[in-house]
Every structure is written in C-alpha cells, then in structure tokens.
C-alpha cells in the first residue's frame, strides 16, 4: 500500500521510537500536523518559539541520551532554529530538526515563507538534507537518525517540501544503513593503547581531564575505575561535569577560566594529562603556550579533527571514550601488585595542599542573598534526589558548576560551547518531558531568562512541574563582571534597570511564583519550591555585584587566577 509523505514521516518516526516532537505548525507543515492529528503514538509539544523548540529537543536528548526531534515550518520557522542547531552542534547533541519547505517547483523563487535553510544551516549541522523525492523520504530519515546519533553526535536537519508531504510512495523503512563516506572509528588502535598504558604507569603526576565526550559515550564507570585503580586525580570541563562524582576524594571539580584553584594548579604541574572526550577549549586552557607545561598529553577523542587542533598531543587515540577505556583497563592488571596509594602519595598530598589553600568561598557575613549560598542550599536540599539542573549562560551558570555537587552524568544541561543565553529554560522543559519522575531545576539569570521567557506558556499548558530559580541581580552579570575588572567599571549596556515583575509575570500564566531578597528566606523558599507539585518560579534578588571567582582573565595562563 502506498502512503503519503506525511504518513511515511509518522511511520518512520515510530520506527525510530520517537515520543515527542517539539515545534510550531505553519503553512508548509499543515499536512504533517494533519497526519499527527490522526494518531496517538507521537505527541506534539506546542512551544511558543522555534528556537525554544530546538532547545527542548536538545535538553531531551542530553538528559535521556536519545535523539530529540523538532518540527517547524518553512521560512521564519526554519531560520528561528539556527541558534538551537548551532548550540547542539557545538556541544555534540543528537537532534533531528524537520523544517517545512515550499513545494519543490517553487524552491528558489522567493516564494512566500521560503528560506534556503539547507544553505543556512550547513555550517551548524553535522549534516542536512533536502528531500526531493518521496521515494527517498524513509531512507533520508533513517540516515538522519543514524548520522545524528553515531560517531561524534550532532544535529541533522531535514528540509521537507510541501508537495513531498502529499506525494505517495511505498513505505519500506530500511533496517540498516551504510554511508560509504561515513565510518567513525570506535575502537582505539591497540598498539597505541599499549603505549598509553605504559606512559601512564610511568608518570609521577598523572591527571585525568574529562570532557563532554565522556558523558556522551557514557564512559563514567570506566573513568571511575581508571581513576580509582591508579589513584589519578580527576578534573572535568563544564561539559564533563557529572562524568566523575564530585564528592569523591579524587575529584578536583571543574578547571578553566572559573575552575577551582586545585584543578588549575594540578594542570600546570602534572607530568601526564589524560584527556578523555575534551577538546582543549580556550575556556579550559587559558593561554595555550603556557598550558600544562610539564605534561605529556594523551588525547582520547572520537573526532580526529579535535586532536592536535589547539594543543600538541603526544599520544593521540582516536576512538569512543568508553570502548577505548574498556580496552585499556585490563592492561593495568599487570601492575595490580603496585601500591598506587603509596606511589601517588606525594602528588595527592600536593593536590590536597592546593585544595586547602584556596577553597571555593564567598561572603557569609552579609544579610543579602549571596548566589553561591543559594546553590549550596539547593544542593543540600536536593542532592539525594539526583535531579536534573538546567542552566542559562553567565554568572549563575558558573555558580551552579562550582557549588552544586554533581554525581551522575546527564544531570547538568548547559550550553558550554556556544554559550547560548535562552537555552536553559527550554532545555529543562525538554528534559522534564524525558523524565516525568525526576525533578528539573532551571537556574537562570534575569537576563538570560527573558530570552525564552515565552515558554512559561508551554509549562503552564502541559502542566510540567519545572522549577525555575532566577538569580536576579538586575545586570547582564558576567559582562558586568568583565567591565568591572577589566574596563574600569564602565557598565556599558549591562544594567537591566527595567525588568518585568517576574512573580506577576509567572502568575499571569497561572504559575505559582514568589520573590525573596533576604538570606533568612532562602532555605524555606527553596523547600517550598522543591515540594511544589506544579510549575514554580522563584525570583531571588541577589547581591548585585557579586562576582564569580576564581577567574583566569581571558588570554592568561591558568596559574594566574584572580581569587577574590
């Protein structure tokens, strides 16, 4: 029997196990929505902006590990997805975005709501397609899911013209797919693995550098075994948070521009840096020429283009982090008689000294609400629930990274690569759709929150108990901090002196909300937020000019930290 393009679309998504589509309808996708209307397997989540729809698909994907899917219309609907695509591309998130397109005979004619989305999205997708023949549709969808979820994952866009949605074809979903130009390397070279093992065993001051790739490949157990077995201290990047339990004695927390003193010092003095699924981003390395000056560098990454891109690497190892470590771990058995605790003692003692020298700290003497305190309190209240925390971008994002103790992967959703303000709220909503039984806390700044504030309607409409905490300082705080420290306190265009009343705004959507401004109110207000069974917004008026420390000024080496 022949099916229409729209029906093939639905059947293909079912084959891929898709539960939710996030998006907004429009002229070029009416036929798809009509087909969605006639079935119950796939639920369409109506958002209020296409950018938010893509972030929701992204948040769903990051938290569940399954691909997230979005469906939007042509033209402006499609162009609105670009920031979402670029965000997912930078952080290697598997999402598939379907965009409607004008009928094929009109493509290129500047038709109503036409945009060359394939051309526009090419640099910010892993791959993209324009479907030109309904007979190719099922295969194209299969390819899109395959490309998005394998190798180094990433966003894939399918541009789907209106006439293809109504054209008919025989439906046959391919079981497997082979793309001759696409063969990711999963297993590391065995000889190189042996060499790396030897180098690690012979090092005196090894250090594990764990990035987002470790979370994506779910290598956390293997990393834990490696660290424990050989007593190697571990730091993560922002994207790697959760891939190693932060309450473990070997954890140094996050490194980089706002990393811990001990992590940054450990990098500068280690003799062996073992990078797993990280890409030596400038926010981690600081001044590249002075980064880890004494270290031999091992770099395990599934993407060969990440290796030796920013930093000269001594032991490149292309492969999937989990599989490479699984191949590597048994090779250490040969050294199981070694007392690694004893061998490592001088190095770990040194690290402990750094740990005690400059702990993450903040002003505890004031009556004002200091944001770090809010994070600590939230951590105390919620850590046993293992919740999902989604952040926007800026100071609050760094306070979450520093003061919330993450113990599991896929629990922190944050735009690390692109740094997209407006990401956190919709991403948190997407995660909530993925995990009905888990608490989702969105930590936002007052600036970022307003970039996708319209999605209050979405959580109200679906009654999704997403909990929002706004760290409200009336500034674009991170930029203000730079202006204070490096631009002579000239607060050019960072003062948000006109603000909505967030409480009344939330209430206008029927969402419960509250504002607090005194330290004494924090614990009780957070408790109310945690216990509430419905969506909830807490507007926390924080100490206005609180800064994020430590801070490595842009372009400085990691041991040049501003500590207070």
């Amino acid at each position, binding site marked *: 029997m022949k099916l229409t393009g729209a029906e093939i679309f639905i059947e293909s998504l079912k084959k891929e196990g898709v539960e939710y589509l996030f998006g907004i309808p429009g002229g070029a996708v009416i036929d798809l929505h009509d087909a969605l209307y006639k079935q119950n397997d796939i639920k369409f989540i109506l958002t209020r902006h296409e950018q938010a729809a893509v972030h929701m698909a992204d948040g769903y994907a990051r938290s569940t590990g399954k691909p997230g899917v979005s469906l939007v219309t042509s033209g402006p609907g499609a162009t609105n997805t670009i920031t979402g695509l670029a965000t997912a591309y930078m952080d290697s998130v598997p999402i598939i975005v379907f965009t409607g397109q004008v009928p094929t005979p009109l493509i290129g004619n500047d038709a109503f709501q036409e945009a060359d989305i394939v051309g526009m999205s*090419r640099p910010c997708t892993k791959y993209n397609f324009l479907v030109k023949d309904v007979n190719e549709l099922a295969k194209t969808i299969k390819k899109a899911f395959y490309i998005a979820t394998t190798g180094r994952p990433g966003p894939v866009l399918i541009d789907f013209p209106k006439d293809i949605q109504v054209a008919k074809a025989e439906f046959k979903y391919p079981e497997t797919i082979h793309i001759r*130009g*696409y063969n990711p390397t999963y297993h590391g070279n065995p000889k190189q693995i042996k060499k790396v093992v030897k180098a690690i065993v012979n090092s005196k001051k090894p250090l594990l550098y764990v990035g987002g790739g470790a979370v994506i490949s779910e290598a956390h157990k293997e990393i834990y075994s490696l660290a424990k077995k050989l007593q190697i201290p571990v730091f993560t990047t922002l994207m790697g948070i959760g891939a190693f339990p932060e309450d473990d004695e070997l954890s140094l927390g996050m490194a980089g521009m706002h990393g811990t003193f001990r992590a940054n010092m450990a990098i500068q003095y280690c003799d062996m840096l073992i990078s797993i699924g990280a890409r030596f981003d400038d926010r981690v390395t600081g001044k590249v020429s002075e980064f880890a000056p004494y270290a031999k560098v091992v770099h395990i990454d599934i*993407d*060969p283009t990440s290796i030796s891109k920013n930093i000269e690497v001594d032991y490149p190892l292309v492969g999937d982090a989990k599989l490479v470590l699984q191949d590597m771990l048994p090779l250490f058995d040969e050294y199981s008689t070694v007392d690694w605790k004893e061998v490592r003692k001088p190095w770990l003692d040194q690290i402990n000294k750094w740990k005690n020298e400059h702990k993450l700290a903040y002003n505890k003497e004031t009556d004002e609400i200091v944001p770090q305190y809010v994070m600590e309190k939230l951590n105390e209240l919620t850590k046993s629930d293992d919740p999902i925390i989604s952040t926007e971008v800026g100071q609050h994002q760094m306070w979450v990274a520093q003061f919330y103790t993450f113990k599991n992967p896929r629990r922190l959703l944050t735009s690390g690569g692109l740094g997209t303000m407006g990401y956190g709220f919709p991403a948190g909503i997407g995660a909530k759709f993925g995990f009905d039984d888990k608490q989702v806390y969105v930590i936002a700044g007052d600036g970022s929150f307003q970039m996708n504030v319209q999605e209050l309607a979405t959580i109200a409409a679906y009654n999704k108990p997403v909990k929002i905490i706004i760290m409200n300082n009336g500034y674009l705080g991170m930029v203000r901090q730079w202006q204070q420290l490096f631009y002579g306190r000239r607060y050019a265009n960072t003062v948000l002196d006109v603000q909505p009343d967030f409480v009344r705004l939330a209430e206008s959507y029927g969402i419960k909300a509250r504002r607090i401004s005194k330290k004494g109110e924090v614990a009780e207000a957070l408790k109310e937020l945690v216990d509430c069974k419905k969506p909830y917004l807490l507007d926390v008026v924080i100490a206005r000019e609180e800064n994020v420390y430590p801070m490595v000024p842009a372009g400085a080496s990691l041991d040049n930290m501003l500590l207070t």
Partner: protein
Amino acid sequence: MKRIYSIIVENESGVLSRVANLFSARGYNVESLSVAPIDEEGLSRMTIVTDGNEQVLEQIGKQLNKLIDVIKVIQFGDEPYVEREMALIKMHTDRNTRAEVLRIVDIFRGKVVDVSHDSYTIEVTGDSTKIDAILSLLEPLGIKELARTGKVAMIREKKR
C-alpha cells in the same frame, strides 16, 4: 607550504559548498579548485591546491576526511605524482607579433585553437611552472584574456 588534495566526493548538490565552507569557515585559502565526475557513477574528483603551515594542512586533511560526502582524501607530497593544468590564452596579435607568438607556442608545444584578424587563442597544457613560464613570455606581446583550469593530479604508478 603548498599542498594538493585530491578528493573523491559524492556527486550531490551541496558538496562543493560543504568543501568550500570548510576552508572559508577557518580562514584557509583555496588557491585553485577543479571538479569533474570520474568514471565511477555518482562520484566526482575535486583537486584543491591550498597553502598553510604543517598544522593547518593536517587540520585540512582531517576536516576533509570528516565530511560525510567525502569518500577518499589523497594528499600529494612525498610520493611522486604527476600534475597538469590547462590554460586558454587569448592574444592580441598583429603583423609584428604573430610570428613571435607562434614561435613561443611551438616551443611550449601549445596549440592555436582559434584565430581572428587580430587574435590567437592558444591552448597549452603542463605543470603549473610551465604555464607560468609561457605566460611570462606572452605577457609583453599582449594577453587579452586568460582562463586556467587549476591543477589536477595523480600519484605515479609504482615502477617495477
């Protein structure tokens, strides 16, 4: 340092743009680029000449390999290879220069492929230094128009 990449790609719309974008997004320069289908159905060969330091060239090679539409990347460097380029050169000619132009074309084993009262169009093939050489000799005689194909290259077959 110059390098020639010969890449086999899927013959699909958007491939050229993906390859071009790889260079432009990183500020790498493309000196010449030629594309044409090869005998295997659905595939094309692109020959790209570029310039950069060792690290940049290594990145380009890896990035090309990473593109899903790229089937194979051949880098010309250590192994012996042949490279050729073709140029069409339209010359202003008059009574005084015709003989001289023909002499130069003859020396370079070129061909005159079109003639008019006041012009010759010349076809010449060779490696890039040869093309450069004939151009420098023809230049003073009045070049009207020039079209170069850019390089194509192949690894030399191993001799027994």
